[in-house]
Structure formats: structure tokens, C-alpha cells
């Protein structure tokens, strides 16, 4: 099972659900397509820009690594991965 974890500010995109388990294996883009199917347009609109890129203020981590340092939306997602969606507030 892939575990998708959303920080509470981001969880508005999933009707308040902060931990979601999904049977999945593929790429990050594929995972988000699946989640969009489940949670509809609100998820898509809150997480993505119109051009399909991730929103500037949303950071995505795959097993703790920032997806920007991996292959972005093409990053492979193994079947037991943990994917975190967190607001971009680092440092301070």
C-alpha cells in the first residue's frame, strides 16, 4: 500500500483526510491521477497549476526525499512508498 500523508492545511484538498492508503505502483503523476479520480477537481485545483505543474507552495516528498531532487512528477512510486504533501514552510 502507498501511504499518502497530507499536512492539515493541505488536507482541504482531500476533504480533511490526512492519511490515505492506496493500492498503487507507478509514477508520482499516476498516483496523483488516481487521487484526483477519488477526490475530484478540488484536489487537482489545489495541488496543481493550470499547466499541470505542482503548485509553488506544495512540497512533495517520496520516502522523505523532495520530489524536485528526484524526477519530479516522473518519480517512480514503489508499492510501499510514503508520499508526503506539505506546505512549503522551511526554516527560520
Amino acid at each position, binding site marked *: 500500500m502507498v501511504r499518502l*500523508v497530507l*499536512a*492539515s*492545511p*493541505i488536507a*482541504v484538498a482531500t476533504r480533511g483526510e*490526512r492519511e490515505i492508503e492506496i493500492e498503487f505502483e507507478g509514477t508520482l503523476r499516476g498516483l496523483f491521477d488516481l487521487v484526483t479520480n477519488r477526490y475530484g477537481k478540488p484536489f487537482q485545483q*489545489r495541488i496543481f497549476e493550470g499547466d499541470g505543474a505542482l*503548485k*509553488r*507552495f*506544495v*512540497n512533495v*516528498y517520496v520516502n*522523505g526525499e*523532495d520530489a*524536485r*531532487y528526484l524526477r519530479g512528477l516522473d518519480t517512480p512510486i514503489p508499492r510501499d512508498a510514503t508520499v*508526503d504533501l*506539505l*506546505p*512549503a*514552510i*522551511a*526554516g*527560520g
Partner: protein
Amino acid sequence: MGYVRGLRCRACGAEFPAVQLAVCESCFGPLEVTYELSAVRDSFRRADLAERPRDLWRYRELLPVLDESARVDLAVGCTPLRRAADLGEALDVREIWVKDDTVNPTYSFKDRPVAVAVAKAREWDLPAIGCASTGNLAAATAAAAAKAHLPCYVFAPASLEPAKLLVPRIFGATVVPIEGTYDDANRIALLTADRRGWGFVNINLRPYYAEGSKTLLFETWEQLGFELPDVIVVPLGSGLLLTSLEKGFRELRELGEVADPPRLVGTQAAGCAPIVQGFESPDGRPKPVRRPETVAESLAIGDPGSGFEAIQAMRATRGFADAPNDPDILDGVRLLARAEGVFTEPAGGTTVATLRRAREDGRIDRDERVVLLITGSGLKTPAVWRDAFQPLAPVPPNSAAVDAYLGGLHHG
């Protein structure tokens, strides 16, 4: 009684009441506190300021704390603004001032933002506080938590300077030493605070936390006889300090107190310069650094949360960004110590190094009045000197041995 109007998103402009909100609910962008400035204007008077207590609460109208009893009184702020004539001579600058925040209660400027964040945590009755820290914030949060009788959890890279991991524990905080970089510590701190309902000062209390830092600008303005300098050199980690200074300037301007902004010059180490690289790139976005490599550990934030805002602030004030290397930074520390008797950690050396470089290439003019923000004490970072100063071999307590050690009598 408060003058707070609410929170406003810096990215999309959405407005919210001043509640416990970490980011904008619609775009997840950064929030800033807004004030009823017309009301502030009636009580924020130069003549009255002089009579006020000598700590950061003297600017209370522009700080978002509603309940005075929620404040933790550690006497934060009102640090010296030192005229640095010898440093000016060394760097060929007519007028340099050193804003010396090494003398705050826990020896860095972080006591300022923490004072505000912890007051909010008490107003909201949060069960515990904490932070993700590159070192200084850990001490500041832990000290304020001790005085507030709140449990405190500090997330920091396990590889940090030993002193910086020790100090928060003396204050009674729980240190969680994270295997990895600051950005790893920040990510897991965010998840932990979120799951447990804790108030992490630089994460979910961030809009309020940010407010404390702008008191550095207010103090500088007051100490210069209600004038702003031409240039302020600011160390950059997440970029929040510089962003907050610019906000403080905008507030003074809206109050009619000042007209032109100081040029805000941001500086970080070449070994971790995501904001400087972003400043130099056309899109103005920070360029994240995966593995920071620098002696300036307190600035080593690879993915700076307020980097974009800091870049905008530097551009808006006609400042610039610079990234000296580690040897230049340590030279800067030594120069400040030897010219002015102020011992800073590498973050402060970074500002000195940038001023030197900017004089060499003319980006700062000799006649500009320059303030260096010296944001942390050198006593927390002795390890950076390991290679520069060899261990001392004991000298027998007799004159012959001392003479031999000193190489003969010194004349004059």
C-alpha cells in the same frame, strides 16, 4: 488591547482573521499580519517611545500579541547599535554601525521572533511548543518555553555543533537529533507538530513569529535618531528575517515615519546560497541546495521557505544578494572581533565579508551609511576555529619559560 486587523496572504491577497493559521487556506502561500495603522498612528509616537520599557515590547502596537499576560519576560531586544569606526576604516566605509544581537538572552536575534510566537502559543493555550532549528532557534525556543512552563521539542540535524545541541537541553527541552540535513529536520518537525497539535514557532506559528524580527529595524531606526540607514546587510537562512525587516519598513512608511527604504542586502555562504542564486536568476525563485556545505551552519537551509519573498524585498529596495566563501566568512568574524571587540558566529562574519566584497566592486558606496546585523554570538560555534588555532602547549610558570614562549622582550 490590540491593533491587529488580521492575516493576509502575500501571494494571492486573501484575508483571514488573526487565528492560528500557518499558511493561506486557498493557495497555501505565506501569511503576514496586518494592523489597523490609522489606530496605531495615534499612540505610536516618537516622544512616547523614549519612555517605554527597554525591550521589544516597546513596539507593542505593531506586534500581534493581544494578551499582555501571555508575554514571557526575558528582556529581549534593545540591543546596542555600535558605531564601528575601526571597521569602517578597515573597509573604507565612512559610517558603519553594528547592530549587536549577540547580547540577547540566548545570544542570537532568534529571541525576538520566539518572544512573539510563544506569547501566541500561550494565548491559544497550546500544550507544547517547539521548532526546527539550525541551532540558535533551538536555544531561544527552549529558554522561552522554560520560562513559560511549556514542554519544548527541538528538531535539529544531529550533525550540528555540539554546543548548539547542548544548550536547549540545559533549558529542559527535548532535542530530537535528526539524521540528515536541516531540511530533513524541518520536514519531520512539520509532520510531528501537525499530528500532535503542538505549536512550532517557525512552522505553524510562523506568521506571528515573523513579526518579532522586524523590531531589529524599529530599534535601528530609533537608535539612529529616527532615521533609517542607507544599507542594511542581513544574513539569510530561510529569508524570513530580511522579509520581516522589509515589512517593518513598510509599516513605518505607512505611519508616515520614514520615506525611503534602506537597501536590503542579503548574504549567505557560497556553500549554501539558494536565495542568492535565485536573486541572480530571471525568475527570482530560490534554487534549492540538497547538501549544504559551509561553516555558517545557522544559515544552511537548502530549501528556504521565505526565499522568494526575500528576493522580492531585495529587489524592491534596490539591494542585492551576495555569497562569500567560508574563508572570507571566517576572516570577517576575525576582523569584526579585532576591530570592534564583538565576537560573532559565522552568520555575522558573512555580513562583514559581503560588505568587504561590495566595497571592492563598488556595489556599496563609501558614503553610504551601513548597518551590519550581527545576529548571533561566536561562543556557540568554537568548532569552526579548530584548524585556525592550534592547541596551546602549557608554559612552565617562570620568567625564562615565558620569555622563551614570547620570543624575547617586546619593545614599545
